[in-house]
Protein backbone atom coordinates (compact mmCIF):
# COMPACT_ATOMS: atom_id res chain seq x y z
CA UNK A 1 0.00 0.00 0.00
CA UNK A 2 2.88 2.32 0.71
CA UNK A 3 4.37 1.78 -2.73
CA UNK A 4 1.05 2.46 -4.43
CA UNK A 5 0.65 5.65 -2.45
CA UNK A 6 4.19 6.65 -3.44
CA UNK A 7 3.35 6.07 -7.11
CA UNK A 8 0.23 8.23 -6.81
CA UNK A 9 2.18 11.03 -5.14
CA UNK A 10 4.86 10.81 -7.84
CA UNK A 11 2.17 11.11 -10.51
CA UNK A 12 0.76 14.17 -8.74
CA UNK A 13 4.19 15.83 -8.57
CA UNK A 14 4.92 15.18 -12.24
CA UNK A 15 1.50 16.57 -13.20
CA UNK A 16 2.26 19.70 -11.15
CA UNK A 17 5.62 20.17 -12.90
CA UNK A 18 3.90 19.76 -16.27
CA UNK A 19 1.23 22.25 -15.21
CA UNK A 20 3.58 25.09 -14.50
CA UNK A 21 5.95 24.54 -17.39
CA UNK A 22 3.69 23.89 -20.38
CA UNK A 23 3.19 26.62 -22.91
CA UNK A 24 -0.24 25.54 -24.04
CA UNK A 25 -2.90 26.91 -21.70
CA UNK A 26 -5.31 24.04 -22.32
CA UNK A 27 -2.59 21.59 -21.25
CA UNK A 28 -2.01 23.67 -18.12
CA UNK A 29 -5.66 23.49 -17.09
CA UNK A 30 -5.88 19.75 -17.74
CA UNK A 31 -2.68 19.14 -15.74
CA UNK A 32 -4.11 20.98 -12.75
CA UNK A 33 -7.10 18.66 -12.90
CA UNK A 34 -4.65 15.73 -12.97
CA UNK A 35 -3.05 17.11 -9.79
CA UNK A 36 -6.46 17.21 -8.13
CA UNK A 37 -7.24 13.70 -9.34
CA UNK A 38 -4.01 12.33 -7.87
CA UNK A 39 -4.81 14.12 -4.65
CA UNK A 40 -8.25 12.48 -4.45
CA UNK A 41 -6.79 9.01 -4.98
CA UNK A 42 -4.16 9.72 -2.31
CA UNK A 43 -6.94 10.76 0.09
CA UNK A 44 -8.77 7.50 -0.56
CA UNK A 45 -5.63 5.50 0.10
CA UNK A 46 -5.13 7.35 3.35
CA UNK A 47 -8.57 6.32 4.66
CA UNK A 48 -10.29 9.71 4.48
CA UNK A 49 -13.53 9.17 2.52
CA UNK A 50 -15.29 12.26 3.87
CA UNK A 51 -12.49 14.47 2.72
CA UNK A 52 -12.14 12.79 -0.68
CA UNK A 53 -15.68 13.40 -1.94
CA UNK A 54 -15.44 17.19 -1.81
CA UNK A 55 -12.45 17.72 -4.16
CA UNK A 56 -14.06 15.58 -6.85
CA UNK A 57 -16.68 18.22 -7.44
CA UNK A 58 -14.34 21.10 -6.63
CA UNK A 59 -11.95 19.95 -9.37
CA UNK A 60 -14.73 19.94 -11.94
CA UNK A 61 -15.81 23.44 -10.94
CA UNK A 62 -12.22 24.74 -10.94
CA UNK A 63 -11.68 23.23 -14.37
CA UNK A 64 -14.76 24.94 -15.79
CA UNK A 65 -13.90 28.29 -14.19
CA UNK A 66 -10.29 28.18 -15.41
CA UNK A 67 -11.32 27.24 -18.92
CA UNK A 68 -13.64 30.20 -18.90
CA UNK A 69 -10.82 32.45 -17.76
CA UNK A 70 -8.26 31.25 -20.26
CA UNK A 71 -9.91 30.00 -23.41
CA UNK A 72 -12.98 32.13 -23.82
CA UNK A 73 -11.15 35.40 -23.69
CA UNK A 74 -8.76 34.31 -26.37
CA UNK A 75 -5.57 32.32 -26.25
CA UNK A 76 -2.71 34.23 -24.71
CA UNK A 77 0.80 33.42 -25.85
CA UNK A 78 3.01 32.10 -23.11
CA UNK A 79 5.13 34.85 -21.67
CA UNK A 80 7.96 33.16 -19.81
CA UNK A 81 9.70 33.69 -16.52
CA UNK A 82 10.76 36.72 -14.60
CA UNK A 83 14.14 38.39 -14.72
CA UNK A 84 17.39 37.23 -13.23
CA UNK A 85 17.12 38.93 -9.85
CA UNK A 86 13.75 37.24 -9.33
CA UNK A 87 15.36 33.92 -10.11
CA UNK A 88 18.04 34.42 -7.45
CA UNK A 89 15.47 35.41 -4.85
CA UNK A 90 13.29 32.42 -5.74
CA UNK A 91 16.19 29.99 -5.53
CA UNK A 92 17.16 31.37 -2.12
CA UNK A 93 13.58 31.06 -0.86
CA UNK A 94 13.31 27.47 -2.10
CA UNK A 95 16.60 26.48 -0.47
CA UNK A 96 15.50 27.98 2.86
CA UNK A 97 12.13 26.18 2.67
CA UNK A 98 13.88 22.90 1.87
CA UNK A 99 16.34 23.12 4.76
CA UNK A 100 13.71 24.10 7.32
CA UNK A 101 11.38 21.34 6.14
CA UNK A 102 14.09 18.73 6.52
CA UNK A 103 14.53 19.80 10.13
CA UNK A 104 10.77 19.54 10.68
CA UNK A 105 10.60 16.09 9.12
CA UNK A 106 13.22 14.78 11.50
CA UNK A 107 10.97 15.58 14.42
CA UNK A 108 7.90 13.86 13.02
CA UNK A 109 7.22 10.16 13.59
CA UNK A 110 7.64 7.79 10.67
CA UNK A 111 4.95 7.93 7.98
CA UNK A 112 2.26 5.42 8.98
CA UNK A 113 2.24 6.31 12.64
CA UNK A 114 -0.13 9.13 13.42
CA UNK A 115 1.11 11.95 15.57
CA UNK A 116 -1.62 11.42 18.12
CA UNK A 117 -0.50 7.87 18.91
CA UNK A 118 2.83 9.03 20.27
CA UNK A 119 1.42 11.52 22.78
CA UNK A 120 -0.75 10.14 25.58
CA UNK A 121 -3.46 12.72 26.13
CA UNK A 122 -4.65 14.42 22.96
CA UNK A 123 -8.12 15.65 21.92
CA UNK A 124 -8.13 13.13 19.06
CA UNK A 125 -8.01 10.25 21.50
CA UNK A 126 -10.90 11.76 23.44
CA UNK A 127 -12.93 12.29 20.26
CA UNK A 128 -12.38 8.75 19.03
CA UNK A 129 -13.10 7.14 22.39
CA UNK A 130 -16.11 9.17 23.48
CA UNK A 131 -17.44 10.52 20.21
CA UNK A 132 -20.19 8.00 19.80
CA UNK A 133 -21.48 8.17 23.34
CA UNK A 134 -21.39 11.94 23.69
CA UNK A 135 -22.85 12.95 20.35
CA UNK A 136 -24.64 9.84 19.13
CA UNK A 137 -23.13 10.06 15.66
CA UNK A 138 -21.39 7.11 14.04
CA UNK A 139 -19.31 9.32 11.73
CA UNK A 140 -16.61 10.71 14.02
CA UNK A 141 -15.52 13.34 11.49
CA UNK A 142 -19.07 14.74 11.32
CA UNK A 143 -19.19 14.74 15.11
CA UNK A 144 -15.93 16.69 15.19
CA UNK A 145 -16.91 19.33 12.64
CA UNK A 146 -20.45 19.86 13.87
CA UNK A 147 -20.37 19.21 17.57
CA UNK A 148 -16.91 19.45 19.08
CA UNK A 149 -15.50 22.03 16.65
CA UNK A 150 -18.63 23.75 15.41
CA UNK A 151 -17.04 27.20 15.67
CA UNK A 152 -14.64 26.25 12.88
CA UNK A 153 -17.58 25.35 10.66
CA UNK A 154 -19.22 28.68 11.47
CA UNK A 155 -15.97 30.42 10.51
CA UNK A 156 -15.81 28.46 7.28
CA UNK A 157 -19.37 29.43 6.40
CA UNK A 158 -18.44 33.07 7.02
CA UNK A 159 -15.33 32.85 4.82
CA UNK A 160 -17.27 31.23 1.99
CA UNK A 161 -19.95 33.89 2.26
CA UNK A 162 -17.31 36.64 2.15
CA UNK A 163 -15.60 35.11 -0.86
CA UNK A 164 -18.89 34.94 -2.75
CA UNK A 165 -19.72 38.54 -1.82
CA UNK A 166 -16.27 39.61 -2.98
CA UNK A 167 -16.69 37.82 -6.29
CA UNK A 168 -20.12 39.42 -6.78
CA UNK A 169 -18.70 42.88 -6.04
CA UNK A 170 -15.85 42.42 -8.48
CA UNK A 171 -17.77 40.88 -11.35
CA UNK A 172 -21.18 42.39 -11.20
CA UNK A 173 -20.93 45.86 -12.58
CA UNK A 174 -22.99 47.50 -15.24
CA UNK A 175 -20.85 46.63 -18.23
CA UNK A 176 -21.01 49.13 -21.00
CA UNK A 177 -22.27 47.40 -24.09
CA UNK A 178 -20.65 48.10 -27.45
CA UNK A 179 -23.07 50.14 -29.56
CA UNK A 180 -23.16 47.76 -32.50
CA UNK A 181 -23.90 44.56 -30.64
CA UNK A 182 -27.41 43.15 -30.32
CA UNK A 183 -29.11 42.71 -26.96
CA UNK A 184 -27.91 39.49 -25.42
CA UNK A 185 -30.16 37.67 -22.97
CA UNK A 186 -28.40 37.93 -19.63
CA UNK A 187 -29.07 36.94 -16.09
CA UNK A 188 -28.72 40.37 -14.55
CA UNK A 189 -31.00 43.29 -15.26
Amino acid at each position, binding site marked *: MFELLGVVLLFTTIAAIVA*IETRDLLGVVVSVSAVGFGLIIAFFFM*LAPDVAI*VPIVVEVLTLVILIRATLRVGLQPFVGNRDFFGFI*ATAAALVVVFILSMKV*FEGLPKFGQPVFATIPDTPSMHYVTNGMSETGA*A*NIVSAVILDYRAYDTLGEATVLFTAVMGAITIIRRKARKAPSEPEVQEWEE
Partner: protein
Amino acid sequence: MHYALCLTLFMVGLYGVLMKRNLIKIIISLVILESAVNLFLIMLGYRAKGIAPIMDGTIPPDTFVRNSVDPIPQALVLTSIVIGVGVTAMTVAIALRLYERYGTYDIQEIRRLRG
Protein backbone atom coordinates in the same frame (compact mmCIF):
# COMPACT_ATOMS: atom_id res chain seq x y z
CA MET B 1 9.81 9.42 1.34
CA HIS B 2 6.15 10.34 1.19
CA TYR B 3 6.77 13.49 3.16
CA ALA B 4 9.51 14.36 0.68
CA LEU B 5 7.11 14.01 -2.26
CA CYS B 6 4.62 16.28 -0.52
CA LEU B 7 7.40 18.80 0.06
CA THR B 8 8.32 18.59 -3.65
CA LEU B 9 4.74 19.40 -4.58
CA PHE B 10 4.83 22.40 -2.27
CA MET B 11 8.09 23.62 -3.73
CA VAL B 12 6.81 23.26 -7.28
CA GLY B 13 3.84 25.43 -6.35
CA LEU B 14 6.05 27.98 -4.60
CA TYR B 15 8.35 28.19 -7.63
CA GLY B 16 5.34 28.80 -9.86
CA VAL B 17 4.00 31.62 -7.69
CA LEU B 18 7.35 33.39 -7.49
CA MET B 19 8.75 32.92 -10.95
CA LYS B 20 5.98 33.00 -13.54
CA ARG B 21 4.71 36.04 -15.36
CA ASN B 22 1.38 34.79 -16.64
CA LEU B 23 -1.40 35.50 -14.17
CA ILE B 24 -3.17 32.21 -14.90
CA LYS B 25 0.01 30.32 -14.09
CA ILE B 26 0.18 32.14 -10.75
CA ILE B 27 -3.41 31.19 -9.94
CA ILE B 28 -2.71 27.57 -10.85
CA SER B 29 0.38 27.55 -8.65
CA LEU B 30 -1.79 28.79 -5.77
CA VAL B 31 -4.09 25.81 -6.35
CA ILE B 32 -1.10 23.44 -6.27
CA LEU B 33 0.21 25.05 -3.05
CA GLU B 34 -3.12 24.64 -1.33
CA SER B 35 -3.37 21.01 -2.49
CA ALA B 36 0.10 20.27 -1.11
CA VAL B 37 -0.78 21.69 2.31
CA ASN B 38 -4.01 19.68 2.51
CA LEU B 39 -2.15 16.54 1.52
CA PHE B 40 0.45 17.12 4.22
CA LEU B 41 -2.22 17.56 6.90
CA ILE B 42 -3.91 14.28 6.01
CA MET B 43 -0.55 12.52 5.91
CA LEU B 44 0.08 13.57 9.49
CA GLY B 45 -2.94 11.67 10.68
CA TYR B 46 -2.54 8.44 8.71
CA ARG B 47 -2.15 5.14 10.51
CA ALA B 48 -0.87 2.20 8.48
CA LYS B 49 -3.36 -0.69 8.34
CA GLY B 50 -5.90 1.44 10.14
CA ILE B 51 -9.65 1.94 10.03
CA ALA B 52 -11.40 5.01 8.69
CA PRO B 53 -12.94 7.07 11.52
CA ILE B 54 -16.50 5.87 10.96
CA MET B 55 -18.05 3.46 13.39
CA ASP B 56 -20.46 0.77 12.45
CA GLY B 57 -21.98 -1.85 14.67
CA THR B 58 -19.61 -4.65 13.73
CA ILE B 59 -16.31 -3.27 15.05
CA PRO B 60 -15.81 -3.54 18.83
CA PRO B 61 -15.08 -0.12 20.32
CA ASP B 62 -11.62 -0.83 21.75
CA THR B 63 -10.40 -2.20 18.39
CA PHE B 64 -11.74 0.95 16.80
CA VAL B 65 -9.93 3.19 19.28
CA ARG B 66 -6.65 1.33 18.86
CA ASN B 67 -6.73 1.27 15.06
CA SER B 68 -8.48 4.34 13.81
CA VAL B 69 -7.06 7.18 11.81
CA ASP B 70 -6.87 10.67 13.29
CA PRO B 71 -10.17 12.52 12.73
CA ILE B 72 -9.02 16.07 13.48
CA PRO B 73 -6.86 16.65 10.34
CA GLN B 74 -9.76 15.40 8.22
CA ALA B 75 -12.07 17.96 9.80
CA LEU B 76 -9.58 20.76 9.19
CA VAL B 77 -8.89 19.73 5.59
CA LEU B 78 -12.61 19.52 4.80
CA THR B 79 -12.98 23.18 5.74
CA SER B 80 -9.78 24.12 3.95
CA ILE B 81 -10.81 22.63 0.61
CA VAL B 82 -14.06 24.57 0.52
CA ILE B 83 -12.25 27.78 1.43
CA GLY B 84 -9.72 27.04 -1.31
CA VAL B 85 -12.39 26.98 -3.97
CA GLY B 86 -13.67 30.33 -2.72
CA VAL B 87 -10.18 31.84 -2.96
CA THR B 88 -9.67 30.42 -6.47
CA ALA B 89 -12.98 31.87 -7.64
CA MET B 90 -12.14 35.28 -6.26
CA THR B 91 -8.67 35.41 -7.81
CA VAL B 92 -10.09 34.31 -11.17
CA ALA B 93 -12.66 37.11 -10.89
CA ILE B 94 -9.85 39.62 -10.29
CA ALA B 95 -7.90 38.17 -13.23
CA LEU B 96 -10.92 38.51 -15.52
CA ARG B 97 -11.34 42.15 -14.52
CA LEU B 98 -7.63 42.78 -15.10
CA TYR B 99 -7.88 41.29 -18.55
CA GLU B 100 -10.84 43.46 -19.30
CA ARG B 101 -8.97 46.56 -18.19
CA TYR B 102 -5.48 45.97 -19.61
CA GLY B 103 -5.91 43.40 -22.36
CA THR B 104 -3.17 41.06 -21.17
CA TYR B 105 -2.39 38.56 -18.44
CA ASP B 106 1.30 39.45 -18.23
CA ILE B 107 2.00 41.01 -14.85
CA GLN B 108 5.01 43.01 -16.04
CA GLU B 109 2.92 44.47 -18.86
CA ILE B 110 0.19 45.36 -16.39
CA ARG B 111 2.71 47.05 -14.14
CA ARG B 112 3.97 49.01 -17.11
CA LEU B 113 0.50 49.96 -18.31
CA ARG B 114 -0.94 50.90 -14.97
CA GLY B 115 -2.34 54.39 -14.76
